[in-house]
């Protein structure tokens, strides 16, 4: 009996859902450019969803592997496969586009948009919580495979400030790791002052 009910319900459900989708909601994302919609919170959400969703099936891809426009259709494809919601897909796209080559170019030209937060340790903590924590974890030990432990004595924090600011600004792949950190952690809105602030926080929190 339940088979007959399900067989009848299935086509009805298909038609009703299609109609609902066309009439009640806009599509996945607005047509406006993703960069105009992004904010620090969206990057943080995107990084978290990226880490949680993609790792369920495969290794984490480097945001710099594709151009920003290529990520658009790649993320749409992955939304179909993974069951991400439209909102999650937009967040992930913002994060990946932020770490793609186009944004690296933007960052290295020194023309990134206005600062997000002022440069003190508390600001650094806030930036870490927004942009870095998804991959590096609250304890700095890394929440996904391949991410370097910030607490390690011979880890990233053994480098000079100058080198670390450059690595964070331009992106960096630790020797031996299969995954690369995108430029500015995928958040192109970070300024040099923001990066210095987050570095100050890293030294205080994980450097000792």
């Amino acid at each position, binding site marked *: 009996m339940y088979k007959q009910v399900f067989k009848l319900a299935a086509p009805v459900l*298909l038609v009703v859902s299609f109609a609902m989708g066309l009439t009640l909601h806009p599509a996945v994302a607005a*047509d406006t450019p993703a960069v105009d919609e992004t904010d620090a919170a969206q990057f943080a959400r995107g990084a978290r969803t990226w880490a949680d969703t993609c790792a369920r099936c495969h290794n984490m891809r480097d945001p710099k592997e594709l151009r920003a426009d290529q990520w658009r259709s790649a993320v749409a494809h992955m939304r179909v496969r993974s069951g991400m919601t439209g909102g999650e897909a937009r967040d992930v796209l913002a994060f990946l586009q932020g770490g793609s080559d186009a944004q690296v170019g933007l960052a290295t030209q020194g023309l990134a948009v206005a600062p997000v937060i002022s440069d003190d340790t508390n600001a650094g903590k806030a930036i870490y919580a927004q942009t870095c924590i998804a991959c590096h974890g609250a304890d700095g030990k890394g929440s996904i*495979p391949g991410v*370097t432990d910030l607490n390690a004595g011979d880890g990233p924090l053994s480098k000079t400030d100058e080198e670390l600011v450059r690595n964070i600004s331009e992106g960096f792949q630790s020797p031996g790791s299969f995954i690369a950190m995108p430029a500015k952690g995928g958040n192109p809105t970070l300024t040099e002052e923001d990066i210095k602030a987050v570095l100050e926080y890293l030294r205080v929190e994980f450097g000792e």
Partner: protein
Amino acid sequence: MKSSNRWKNTVISVSALLITATPAFAQTDASRIAELEEKMSLLSEQLAALQSELSQVKTEGQTATAEEIQSLRTEVGAARQIALQATQRPNVMTSTTSTTHLSGYASADFISPENGNSAFTANFNPMFHFQWKDKILWEAELAFELQEDGETEVELEYTTIDFFLNDNIIFIAGKFLSPLGNFRQNLHPSWINKLPSAPPGFGHDGAAPIAEVGMQLRGGVNVGTNSKITYAGYVGNGPILEGEGGEIHGINAGGFAGDADGRKVVGGRISYLPFPRLEIAVSSAFGDAAVTEDDGFAVSGDPLRNYNVFGFDVTYQWKDFDFRSEYISQDVADSALSISPEGGKWETWYAQGAYKFANAKWEGVLRFTDYTTPHPDLSQEQWAIGLGYLVSSSAMIKAAYEINTGLTGEISDDDRWLLQVAYGY
């Protein structure tokens, strides 16, 4: 003299802005570039005029007026705005509504069985993505596989048009990978699969359906702050039953454009993620099927019989540890009037653990599979142990050894060494 320095600094700033903006202009579309070039030309002329005035000031010892300084500041502001706009453009599509992307994966394999000759082989699967705005995605995958006789076999893995109806519903039409279970739809690509081979029963004519032709609804819904439900439901043409010597040799659920038995199959999968790194899912499908091929010849009019699929899968990640397990079965009922009257059940399950180490560059894998079919020569129990080296996140070298237990003397009983180089692009 102080004023003269300010002029000089300002001119240098304008020049610097124009220079730094140039590379970004090259990445914009033609009309935008033309517009920017026009503005650049205008600014260059104004800059030349300002330089001329500056020279005059230097020569005559004149000082700039407040109006002149304000005018220069306005020009500098305009140049900065143009530069900012230009550098932001490469990130987005402003003049086109469509985007394309070619991806896929490839692998080269070396297989050395206990009995028989070792051999190299290769294959690649290009994937095409064409997207209109953020509303429609056409995606397709072809499978090019080199055969033993040197021929190349080409197969359409899937081709679908996906309509993103809203944030939670995607309507899919075409040939799609079967949403039943997890391995076939998400884990089988060589750059994702942690071992060089698929678990027994997850290949063609096995226990897991491969693909389906029809329509599908799928998507995800967040439940609370950290939990989620994903779903997929479909209606499709269903499988065909392949007879051989009066028995059903296998259930071919590879996705067919025709429906020889005339009855549709309905099914789906629903998964629950109590937290992001744990996924628990059940799958089911049912319908009717009939023998449409016997000993390689087409058969028509064979009676319909019940067809059922049931599956269960779980995935869990914790730090560098990855665990997954899946059970899936296909069965068809007996049919006394059929040329292959006896039905049967094809079922398989596997459990796999993997652990990344040495800075996540290496990955050890252990998998157990138990595949049971109505044909003893095809049933198999397998232990597979493997080691992978991650050249990058999507390129890896994998080595594995399979300990296979099947009917003595059959291929299913042969142990094997496997080596694979895989790349997802």
